[in-house]
Each structure stands twice: as structure tokens, then as C-alpha cells.
């Protein structure tokens, strides 16, 4: 069972959280002008990284707030969690194998 650190509440059990996929994908400011190609890419296409990846999580069964995390998808280890709008932490140098 993972222990996840909510930036607002501290460490809590994994079952309180929901993951919402890749973080730092900016919503296009000009949706009307996008081609189907660009819009589909924005909505559906993901990096799905094997290694370190930035993700959005929410503390559903807790404070209910959203935050970001840097996590290794091979070991499931959380490097860090941080509030929306805060600068993202650097990827550790072992390249996440």
C-alpha cells in the first residue's frame, strides 16, 4: 500500500487519492482555431512514461484538493508532491530505470 503526501494534509493512505494522469498539459487558448489533429492530440495523446512522470492527483477522501506529483512509474515511488502553480521539482539524475 502506498503512502502519499498531500501537500495540504500530509501523509495519507493511497486509497484516499485519485490519479488524473499526466500533469502540465496546458489547455489551448484558441480551441476554435485548432485542427482536429491538434485537438485530438491535446485531449487523448499522452506520453505514458516508463520512468519519472509528472501527474495530477486529488485527495478525494480528504481535503478534496488537487495537486501535482513527480513519481517513478516503474517503482511507484513518489519523489515529491507540490501544489498547483508551484514550480515542478527536477527529475532525479538516475534517469528512473
Amino acid at each position, binding site marked *: *500500500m502506498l503512502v502519499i503526501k498531500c501537500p495540504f494534509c500530509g501523509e495519507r493512505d*493511497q486509497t484516499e487519492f*485519485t490519479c488524473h494522469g499526466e500533469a502540465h498539459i496546458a489547455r489551448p487558448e484558441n480551441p476554435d482555431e485548432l485542427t482536429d489533429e491538434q485537438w*485530438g492530440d491535446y485531449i487523448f495523446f499522452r506520453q*505514458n512514461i*516508463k520512468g519519472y512522470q509528472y501527474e495530477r492527483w486529488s485527495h478525494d477522501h480528504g481535503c478534496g484538493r488537487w495537486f501535482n506529483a513527480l513519481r517513478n*512509474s516503474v517503482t*511507484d515511488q513518489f519523489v515529491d508532491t507540490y501544489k498547483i502553480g508551484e514550480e515542478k521539482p527536477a527529475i532525479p539524475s538516475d534517469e528512473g530505470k
Partner: protein
Amino acid sequence: MNKYSVFSLVRNAMSYHENWQKAWRSPDPKKEYDVVIVGGGAHGLATAYYLAKECGITNVAILEKGWLGGGNTGRNTTIVRSNYLWDESSAIYEHAMKLWENLSQDLNYNVMFSQRGLLHLAHNVHDMQEIGRRGHAIHLNGIDSEFLTPEQVKEIEPTINLDCRYPVLGALLQRRGGSARHDAVAWGYARAADDMGVDIIQNCEVTGFDIQDGVVKGVETSRGHIGAKKVGVVTAGHSSVMANMAGFRMPLESFPLQAMVSEPLKPVINTVIMSGAVHVYLSQSDKGELVVGAGSDNFVSYSQRGSFDMMDHIVGPLKELFPFTSRLRMMRQWGGIVDVTVDRSPIITKTPVENMFFNCGWGTGGFKATPGSGNVFAHSIANGELHPIAAPFTMNRFNTGALIDEGAAAAVAH
């Protein structure tokens, strides 16, 4: 290839079973192939088999980083059915079902295909509406399905507890559904493909692609460069990793999906039972073990493990539905990495790289499609154009919006 038969069994018994021919060779890779298949799961092996058998292309290699069937093929709960909602899905899953029905004869290998029937339980009004809608849609496509009352369910599965916390209100039955032996499917396709000249190369990891002017020319592997006129990538949970190597992204996320088996029992579960609402699915293997599948984790992971709470989530409903399981011991638990699309339908597609094709996105439910998937993918690679059954599953649908939304029929992992 020596044919397997009752006579060969007797003949080999005379020599204490010490002289069976190897099921397939293990050749060193050649310099170049007409087609290189990346990924030695059942879908990749089936692709190579149909390339050789139906498309006349035998200069083919399968490159597998581990061992044959060591991915999701050897980790799945082997539910086979073709009762999906949409026409496109009916076409591909029923194509597979028809091939399953003759597969052991076709491969001269007993894949232990067993059409013992598959029950889809309904526990609430929404479930009843869903099986109603899907059952009728399936009928219109000429695929068998029957609606059952709770009493009829009880007749088929006497040990079920209909009045559990979320009572069983009805069920959809596909009598032609059932299961098959996963390893045998991989080994049967491997043996038959090898016999037609396909090179099966295990312990050979693809680490990059040789792409020149947007055209694939070969693959970089742990055993050196291997040239290829065409490349078919069939790597399930690792498809995004392969796409990233080739310089594009896929509409996929990879999640761990778990299953477990119990200690062996005398025959007690007669069909394959699935319940989306309480979320559990189970069957009994020929060894007697109950094979029970869990849900997938909701975060990207390549850990091949899965979360503890997901196991907890299926043990509850299992005990509610089948109270006799409460003192059953579970023997093994494992996870596989499934490649999930948002519409819960697979991707069979050309890619931005010329002569490179992907077959992936089967997520939690691709074992049942193995023969059909390999068959239409082989024709797609051979012709350079997607087979008509495969065409709707192109990756392009995520740009055009023509999704094939099997959320309801496939949202339960199976």
C-alpha cells in the same frame, strides 16, 4: 513438424517421452526480414502465423525481450466472448470467436478452448438496461445471447447467492463464450509459425528503431541491428514506450491489472461469471483452481504488481456472490501491464512512420481477440492498408472523433 496425434502420443510413450521434437527452433537473427514483429505475446505470434499461412510472407521474425507469452498473454484470466455493443467490435470479436472454434485443429495444438458459457450478471436497474440494450444489439449482429432470470442463473450456478447485498436481478448469457489455455495459445501459434519458417527470437529486446526519411528500415536490439522492410509492434503495456522511441505518442495509458488463483477444488463453477457492478469475474480452471480477476489501478505504472486495495475490492464481492469461497485459500497473485484507451477499444493502425504498424490498446480484454487480431493485423501489414475489420480501429479515430465506446461492455476488466 511432427504432427501431434494419439498415435504420436503412443509412439513417444514407447521411448519414455524422451524423443519429442522441439516445438520450435531458436535461430540466430538474420540480417534482414520482410517483416519484423516486436513482442512475442499471443497477438504477435498469431500475426506471424497468419502472415505465413494466409499472406505467403514467411521471411518473418518475432522479437521478444523475455520469453513467449510472459507478458499479458500468460497473466490473463482467459475469458473469451464476443458480446460487445458496437458493430465494429462485434465484427472483430466475432471474427476471433469463429477462429477460436477451429483453432486447435488449425494449429494441431490443443488450446483447450472451452465454450462453457459466460454469464454477465446484472445487479441494478442500470445493469438491466445495459444488458438489455447490448443483448439486442448483439442479436442484430447475429451473435448469440440470452437473457436469464435469477432462477435460471441459479440453475446454472447452484452455489451462487442471489440475495446478496446487491441482489442478482438477471444476467446475459453467451453460450459460445468461455475460456482457453493462454500458454497453449502462445505455444501453438509459435510452433505452427516456426514450422512455416518464421524465426522466433526470445531474449531479444528492441531498444530503438532505424528510421530513415520517415521510413522504418530496421530495429536496434540487444542482439544488434536487424533490418526490416516492415515492422509490426505488438507490445501491449509497452506500446507507448515503443512509440516514444519512434518519435510519436499514443492515446494510451498503462495500468497494472491483477488476478489471483485459489487452491484447487472439485468442479464447482460451471461457467465464466462476470459482474461489472460489484466488480469481480471468475472461472474454474481445468486444474480446479478458481481464477479471479481484479480491477486495474488508476495510475500509470509499469511495476507488474498492482495495489493491495484492488485485491481487497474483489474478495468482498467474491464472498458475497459465492459464500463457499470464504474459507478458500488463495495460492498466487500477480499483475500485468495493460494498455488502456479512453474508449476501451483497441488500436490497429498505421503510424507516422512509413511501414511501421501498431496493434495495441487491447487493455484489460484482448486475449479473447487473439486469433482475430493477429489475422486482420497480418493482412493489414501484408497489404499496407488496414483490413476492413481493422480499419475502424485506426489511431486516427482519436483525431476524427469516431470513437468506438465500449465503456459499458468492457469497463469491467476481463
